[in-house]
């Protein structure tokens, strides 16, 4: 029988780590769908200021949060995943940092420093999931090229900052504006690589939940998560959440660079319920936008051993692209019957929502646990992967086989 459990034993990769976190992380569950190379190259490794995370790639740094950190609804700053496209990542000096706001759809371009950003605009906060578009790419079947993420290229935090809308209004946004562009301080290793610059539609930019954050869970943003300020686009995938943001571009025309026109796109005919971004559509593809409804079971894993009569908790987190989680259903008999799980505290529609269902291992048979979340629009998870070439939007209902000892 195939050993469905894949654990990452990484003691050798952990020099001089003595914290309990490091010890607890010494065995990390990874999904069985990952490719051989992804499993073999994964080690636990600490970036400065971070607990040991699952290293997918060193440079540009791509580090994944181990699953146990998702037992809590809010992800710790020091365990929050790290994802970069470009490898020249400056240590931004908060005192020297400036935000330039301008573009051809701005009547009054301006520039400001961090103190003024905090002082001149009303502070606000939002709890929101930041999820890499490619989270779970490594579980795609067939496998596709890219960073072979497991389930942890995501995190949920309380982001504090100022409304992007207020900043755009101060710049005198004109009715010609169609997209708002962002650039960050990180750049390519060589001049010929296109700089990472992204845009969002003006409607999303003017949404009161879209902010420029300077705090994450009440602390300054960690360097690796965009210090001193990053864009927060609640509900949408991480590609739009520009880190180390330095430029805001009010545009009367769509941006047509590699990162918009070629990357981060899905086939036009798939994911029809997704938020629209019409200025970036073409005949065959459209940009990825909001996060599909999804869940992650953290309390048990495929292949775990249980005893007859034992009480087992099926617990985890559920989230979506901003409609909010309505229900989480759990089956313990392989999908024949479903019951509602108990939902935990509501931190708002953009947040992880914890869920829990406790059941007794029956006298006969082996439990097969399945979980599906529904958002308030009625969207739910899929039974079969909606394959797409970039490996996005994996929200397949899991089948967690428990082995009765």
């Amino acid at each position, binding site marked *: 029988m195939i050993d469905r459990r894949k654990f990452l034993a990484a003691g050798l990769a952990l020099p001089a780590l003595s914290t309990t976190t490091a010890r607890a992380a010494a065995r990390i569950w990874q999904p069985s769908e990952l490719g051989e*190379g992804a499993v073999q190259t994964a080690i636990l490794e600490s970036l400065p200021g971070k607990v040991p995370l699952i290293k997918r*790639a060193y440079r540009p740094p791509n580090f994944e949060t181990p699953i146990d950190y998702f037992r809590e609804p809010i992800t710790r700053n020091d365990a929050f995943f790290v994802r970069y496209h470009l490898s020249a990542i400056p240590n931004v000096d908060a005192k020297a940092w400036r935000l330039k706001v301008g573009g051809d759809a701005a009547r009054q371009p301006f520039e400001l420093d961090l103190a003024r950003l905090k002082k001149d605009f009303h502070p606000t906060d939002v709890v929101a999931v930041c999820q890499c578009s490619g989270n779970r790419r490594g579980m795609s079947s067939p496998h596709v090229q890219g960073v072979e993420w497991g389930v942890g290229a995501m995190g949920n935090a309380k982001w504090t900052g100022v409304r992007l809308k207020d900043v755009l209004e101060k710049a005198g946004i004109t009715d010609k504006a169609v997209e708002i562009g962002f650039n960050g301080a990180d750049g390519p290793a*060589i001049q010929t690589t296109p700089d990472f610059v992204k845009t969002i539609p003006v409607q999303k930019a003017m949404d009161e939940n879209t902010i420029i954050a300077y705090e994450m869970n009440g602390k300054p943003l960690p360097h690796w998560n965009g210090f001193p300020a990053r864009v927060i686009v609640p509900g949408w995938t991480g590609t739009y959440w520009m880190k180390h943001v330095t430029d805001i571009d009010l545009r009367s025309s769509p941006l047509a660079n590699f990162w918009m026109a070629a990357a981060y796109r899905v086939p036009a005919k798939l994911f029809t319920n997704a938020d629209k971004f019409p200025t970036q559509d073409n005949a065959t593809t459209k940009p990825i936008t909001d996060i599909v409804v999804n869940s992650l079971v953290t309390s048990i894993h495929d292949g775990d051993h249980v005893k007859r009569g034992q009480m087992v908790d099926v617990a985890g987190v559920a989230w979506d692209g901003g409609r909010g989680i309505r229900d989480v259903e759990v089956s313990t008999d392989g999908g024949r019957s479903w019951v509602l799980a108990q939902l935990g505290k509501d931190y708002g529609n953009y947040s992880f929502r914890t869920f829990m269902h406790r059941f007794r291992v029956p006298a006969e048979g082996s439990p097969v646990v399945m979980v599906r979340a529904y958002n308030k629009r009625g969207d739910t998870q899929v039974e079969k992967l909606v394959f797409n070439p970039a490996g996005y939007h994996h929200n397949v209902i899991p089948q967690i086989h428990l082995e009765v000892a």
Partner: protein
Amino acid sequence: MKILALASVLLVPVASMLVMAGEEKIHLKEGAGVDLVRKDCVSCHSLDYIPLNSPFLDHKGWEATVAKMQKAYGAQIPQEDTAPIAEYLAKNYGKK
């Protein structure tokens, strides 16, 4: 930040070569073409991206990947190196 700037300072990243702590632990399989991979690929990314993306790309898939690095990401790979690099990748990290 434990980034070693080998050739330049961090705020002037153009044409510099940045290496992250830990990269020295990456070992690619020995084989014809590995020197070209080490020379041409490492200026933009650590070499663990190669085994990470294995073993599911066939020869065509690796060829397309090398071409993408050149066309989309502007990698400065000498034209004569592309075929032996794709060959090495397919042979050592290709679909079995």
